[in-house]
C-alpha cells in the first residue's frame, strides 16, 4: 500500500493543480484483460478546463474515475502511473485520506442524471451530506448551504426537501452539479454531463458550468465525445483513441492546427454550418478490440496515411510546439501534413 503521505496543502502558485503521468488502467477478467487506459499523461493548471475527447470506449470515463481512485472494484486495476492532485499522489492515498479529498478537493458529475441521485433521500439531504462530511458545520447550517447551492444552480431553495423523482432530467443534472460544487472543490470532473439531456437544456447546463467556473475558479476535466461542447467551454484538448492520448494541446492547436489523422477524421465527421453541401466523411472501420490492441499505433488500420513503421511497436510522443504534441510516426518525415486546411475551424 502507499506509504503514508500527509496531505500538504500546496499554495496555488503557477504549479499544476493536476498532473496525470503515464496512467495505465486495465480491467482484469477471468479470460482476458481489457486495456482501457494505456500510458496517458496530461496536466491542468488551476482554473483551466481540459477536454478529454474521444469515441465511446476510448477509456475517457476510466481515466476520469482513476483521478478519484474510484475505478470499480476487483476487476479494475491501476497498473502504473501517478496522479498528482495539489501535491498528493491520489493513487497512494489510504481510503481515509481519499474520503477527505473526494468532494473537497476534487468532485465528479456523472452522465446519466436519472440514476445518479439516491431516490429515497431528499435532494437537500444529498447536498448537505457532502457539506457535513468536509466542513465542521451542524445540520441546519449544512441544509442552509444546500439550499444556497440549489439557488446557485437555478432551482428554488425550497425544493430542497423534495425527492429526485419530483425533478425533470435537466433539473436532476443541476442537482448533481450542486452536489459536486457544494464544497467548492478545486477540480471538477464532468463525465459527459450533457449527453443525456436535450439540446436546449444542454446549453443551459454548459452555460451554468461556465459561470460557476468563473465564479469559483474551478479547474474542470470535461469528458465528452461532442466537439461542439469542447469548442464551447474548454481551454485545452486531449484527443483519446484506444486508451491513448493521440493529440493534445490548446483549443487553437487542436482545432486550427490539427495534426493527428484521427482528429482530422473527427472533424470530417461533423456537419459544417457554413458548408452545407459538404458530405460527411466517416472514419472507416471500427474501434479496435481493447483486449487485443494492435502493436504500434492503434489507429493505423483505419488511418489513411498509415505506412509500415506505424505498426512498429516503438511509438513516442512528438512535441510540435510548446503546448501541442501528437502521437504519430507520419511526422518522422518533416514535410508531412494533413490535407485538412489550416484554420478551418474558427473556435
Amino acid at each position: 500500500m502507499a506509504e503514508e503521505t500527509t496531505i500538504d496543502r500546496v499554495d496555488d502558485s503557477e504549479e499544476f493543480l493536476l498532473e496525470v503521468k503515464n496512467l495505465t488502467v486495465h480491467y482484469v477478467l477471468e479470460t482476458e484483460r481489457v486495456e482501457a487506459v494505456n500510458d496517458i499523461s496530461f496536466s491542468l493548471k488551476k482554473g483551466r478546463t481540459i477536454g478529454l475527447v474521444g469515441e465511446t470506449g476510448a477509456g475517457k470515463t476510466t481515466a476520469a474515475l482513476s483521478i478519484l481512485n474510484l475505478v470499480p472494484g476487483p476487476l479494475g486495476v491501476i497498473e502504473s502511473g501517478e496522479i498528482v492532485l495539489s501535491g498528493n499522489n491520489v493513487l497512494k492515498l489510504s481510503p481515509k485520506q481519499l474520503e477527505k479529498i473526494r468532494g473537497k478537493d476534487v468532485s465528479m458529475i456523472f452522465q446519466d442524471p436519472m440514476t445518479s441521485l439516491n431516490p429515497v433521500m431528499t435532494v437537500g439531504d444529498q447536498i448537505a451530506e457532502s457539506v457535513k462530511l468536509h466542513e465542521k458545520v451542524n445540520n441546519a447550517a449544512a441544509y442552509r448551504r444546500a439550499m444556497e447551492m440549489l439557488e446557485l444552480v437555478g432551482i428554488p431553495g425550497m425544493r430542497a426537501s423534495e425527492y429526485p423523482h419530483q425533478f425533470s432530467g435537466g433539473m436532476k443534472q443541476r442537482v448533481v452539479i450542486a452536489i459536486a460544487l457544494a464544497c467548492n472543490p478545486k477540480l471538477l470532473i464532468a463525465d459527459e454531463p450533457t449527453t443525456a439531456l436535450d439540446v436546449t437544456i444542454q446549453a443551459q447546463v454548459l452555460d451554468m458550468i461556465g459561470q460557476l467556473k468563473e465564479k469559483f475558479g474551478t479547474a474542470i476535466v470535461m469528458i465528452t465525445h461532442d466537439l461542439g461542447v469542447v469548442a464551447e467551454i474548454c481551454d485545452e484538448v486531449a484527443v483519446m483513441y484506444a486508451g491513448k492520448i493521440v493529440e493534445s494541446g490548446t483549443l487553437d492547436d487542436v482545432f486550427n492546427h490539427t495534426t493527428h489523422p484521427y482528429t482530422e477524421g473527427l472533424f470530417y465527421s461533423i456537419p459544417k454550418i457554413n458548408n452545407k453541401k459538404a458530405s460527411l466523411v466517416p472514419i472507416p472501420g471500427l474501434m479496435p478490440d481493447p483486449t487485443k490492441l494492435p502493436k504500434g499505433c492503434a489507429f493505423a488500420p483505419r488511418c489513411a496515411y498509415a505506412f509500415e513503421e506505424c505498426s512498429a511497436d516503438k511509438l513516442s510522443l512528438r512535441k510540435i510546439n510548446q503546448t501541442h504534441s501528437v502521437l504519430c510516426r507520419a511526422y518522422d518525415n518533416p514535410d508531412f501534413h494533413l490535407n485538412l486546411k489550416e484554420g478551418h475551424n474558427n473556435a
Partner: protein
Amino acid sequence: MLRYVLRRILWLIPVIICVSFIIYTLLSLAPGTIVDKMITDSTTQAELQEIMAKYDLDKPMVYRYAKYMWGLLQGDLGTSQITGSSVWQSFIARLPNTLWLALASLVIGVGLSLPLGILAAKYSSTIWDNLTTGFTLIGMSMPSFWLGLLLLRWFSLDFKIFPAGGNAGLKSFVLPAITSGLMLMAMVTRQTRSAMLEVLHSDYLRTARAKGVPEKSVIRVHALGNAWIPIITTIGNVLSRTLAGQAIVESVFSWPGIGRLTIEAVEQRDVTLACGCVILTSIIYVLLLLLVDIMYAVVDPRIRAQYQGTKKSKKAVMA
C-alpha cells in the same frame, strides 16, 4: 395516508364475515359434535338429547350460524362451548405467547438475515456467497416440524442446553424461535442478497463515493436504504406463512400459543372457539399485511407521494 389505512381496516369487516361463514360451515359439517366426547359411558339417549339441546345441536346448522353471527355483529365472539369462558378471554390469554414467539422468530429471521444478505452481496461470487446461497436454499426447503424435532433431539435431549417445551423463561424461546424463524431467515437473506446486488451496481452509490462518503455508510445508508423495498415485500409474504406455521412449532414444543388453541378447538369440535380463533388470526394477518404496506410508504418516498395525493406536488410546479 390515514384515509388509505382506514379503508384497509374497514375492509376487515367483509373478511370477518366471509371467514366466519367458511369456517363455521366447514366445522359444523365435520363428523362428530362436541357432545360426543363429553358424555359418560352410562348416559342414556334421552340424557344425550337433553345435552344436545343445551348446545343447540338439535337445531339445524343455519339456526346456530345465525345466532353466532348475530352475536358476532355485536362484537361478541361468543363463549367456548367446552370451557364456557369467552372466546376473547381464552384468545387473549394465549395471544402474548404467540406474539412473543413470532417476535423472537422475526428477530432471528430478519436480524440475522440482513447482515448475511448484505455480506453475500458485497463479496458476491466468493466462498461466503456460495455458502450463504447453499444455506438459504436448505433453510427454505426444510420442513419446520422436522427441524424442530432435530433441534429437540440434539439440543435438549443430547446436550441438555435448552428446555424441551413450554414457555418457561427466556431460554425456552430459543429452539422454537429458530424453528419458526429459519424459513423467514432463508427467504429474507435471499431477497436481501438479490436486492443488494441490484443496488450495489447503481450509479447513486458511485455519486455517494465521489462525495467522499465512507464505504461503511455507503452500504448502510445509501445501498440498504434502497434495498429495503423488496426486502419488506418478502418479509410480508413469508411472515404470513410463518404465522400459519406457528401451529406446528407450538405442537412440537408444547408452546401454549394460538396455533395450538385452534388445533385443539378443531379436534374437540368446539366450533365457536375454533371459529373465533381463525377470525382473530385472520385479522392479525390482515393487519400484518397492512403494516407491511405502511412500511413501504415509510421506506420509499415515491410510494409515500402517491398517498399524499397531488396537494404537495402542485405547489412545487407553481413555484
